[in-house]
């Protein structure tokens, strides 16, 4: 483990009932690194991401984000109260962007972004407005700050959702298929925002089917299949000379235009 590791996942297992979706996954992400996780549907890549901020409780294994370490043995090793506090600490260090945006429909774009700083961090309203406007501007959505989500396009919603996560000033951003629910012509604007974030040096963990994005932006590509990491490396290696047969099939499909 190198000194600038910010996310560490070790021997992670997740069962949904009888289904073993994550089978001993270990992964380290360094500060400022952009890691794209690719793989077919059902390979466990979203579950891995959701375990990192405990939207799914891991069945077994260790998660560490910015020196906050939570170990699970299925029952939870730490005392219940401490366990919750640690999960809270991890969530404060991670921002998450969802496939379905999950904007709060009863709040305007600005209010969506202000919600976390005000209710979770106890920030006063003036500061929260300032931070919210700064982050909406960062994703190019300041001009729609007073609109309700209902009146925004999918791409605009996702950009507001990114601003909402950024406003909490997380150390790591988790993206769970951020463009999969978008019409093709709206994907570009979201990917551009993500590229800019990467350029700013944000640490990003991106579950995606956007092979072009992974190839262009990722520092490292992680390939998952059947609940395991089967291959990882710099994009050029993974895309040009995949080792595992399942990776080859995935890349093949991309090159033949089957996946974007």
């Amino acid at each position, binding site marked *: 483990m190198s000194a600038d590791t910010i996310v560490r996942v070790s021997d992670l297992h997740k069962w949904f009932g009888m289904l073993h979706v994550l089978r001993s996954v270990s992964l380290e992400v360094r500060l400022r690194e952009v890691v794209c996780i690719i793989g077919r549907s059902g390979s466990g890549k979203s579950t891995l991401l959701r375990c990192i*901020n405990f*939207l799914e409780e891991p069945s077994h294994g260790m998660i560490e984000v910015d020196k906050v370490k939570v170990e699970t043995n299925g029952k939870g090793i730490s005392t219940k109260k401490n366990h919750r506090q640690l999960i*809270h600490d991890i*969530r*404060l260090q*991670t*921002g*998450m962007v*969802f496939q*379905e945006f*999950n*904007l*709060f*429909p*009863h709040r305007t774009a600005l209010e969506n972004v202000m*919600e*976390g700083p005000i*209710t*979770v961090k106890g920030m006063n309203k003036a500061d929260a407005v300032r931070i919210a406007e700064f982050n909406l501007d960062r994703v190019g959505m300041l001009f729609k700050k007073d609109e*309700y989500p*209902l*009146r925004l396009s999918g791409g605009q919603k996702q950009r507001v*959702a990114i601003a*909402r*996560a950024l406003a*909490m000033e997380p150390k790591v951003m988790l993206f769970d298929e951020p463009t999969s629910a978008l019409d093709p012509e709206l994907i570009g604007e979201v990917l551009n925002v993500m590229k800019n974030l990467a350029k700013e040096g944000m640490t990003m963990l991106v579950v995606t089917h956007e092979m072009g994005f992974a190839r262009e932006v990722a520092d490292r590509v992680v390939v998952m299949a059947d609940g395991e990491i089967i291959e990882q490396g710099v994009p050029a290696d993974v895309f040009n000379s995949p080792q595992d047969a399942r990776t080859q099939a995935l890349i093949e499909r991309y090159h033949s235009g089957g996946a974007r």
Partner: protein
Amino acid sequence: MYHFDWPLFFQYIWPPTAFHDPLIRNGLIATIIISVVAQALGVVLGLFVALGKMSKFPLFRLLAEAYIWYFRGTPLLVQMMLLFFGLGVTHIYDFPDIKLGVLVISGAIQAGTLALGVNEGAYMAEIVRAGIEAIDPGQMEAAKSLGMTYGLAMQRIVLPQAAKVIIPPLGNEFNSMMKTTSLMEVISASELFFGFTQVNARLFKPFELFIAASLYYLALTTIWSFVQARIESGLGERKGAERGPGMMERLFSGATGKGAR
């Protein structure tokens, strides 16, 4: 051939003359206040029972299930008599009068209101639960990913959205509640219907007086349905959603009210 006593009938349906009789005036006021208090109690209890039923702790789920099972599975009238006479005779609680300045709240009104509210809580629990479950789980996840606790996410994100789903059936519950308060007549709580039965005991004109009584309830529920339509169209406008059923539809569709339980 029955001789309908028109003068008496008019005297008791026309508020300025009917209100000369304190039994009617105070009864009407009591009915309105009891309805509001019992409904409010029902909403609060319903919220907690609904959260209990959705809890991850089996004990809370069991308690909530048992509450709903009992209070929806037994007659309100029996619950009310059990609470008032049953608790009284055991001296667990005697329902003494409560004095609030000039206002005296009789034991019967306390017991009746409590029974109405507790019973309503069981029905509201299902309404609140349906409202919460109508909200996309992604909302809770997004709130949690920002670091909100379950309670904060409920209060700030889920419940305000669920309210939109909860308010229309809540309005119907209140309509029902105003009529159901009349059950309190059996424990001699001095609400509107008790007032009319007392007048009837004096004059023995049940046909005229009970028609008059029914018209008071009709007036209450009709006024309420106007208010309800206003509230719901307000909800719809603010959220840019569809409007609820219109005034006429609500009054005459017959599908909304449930009648006394």
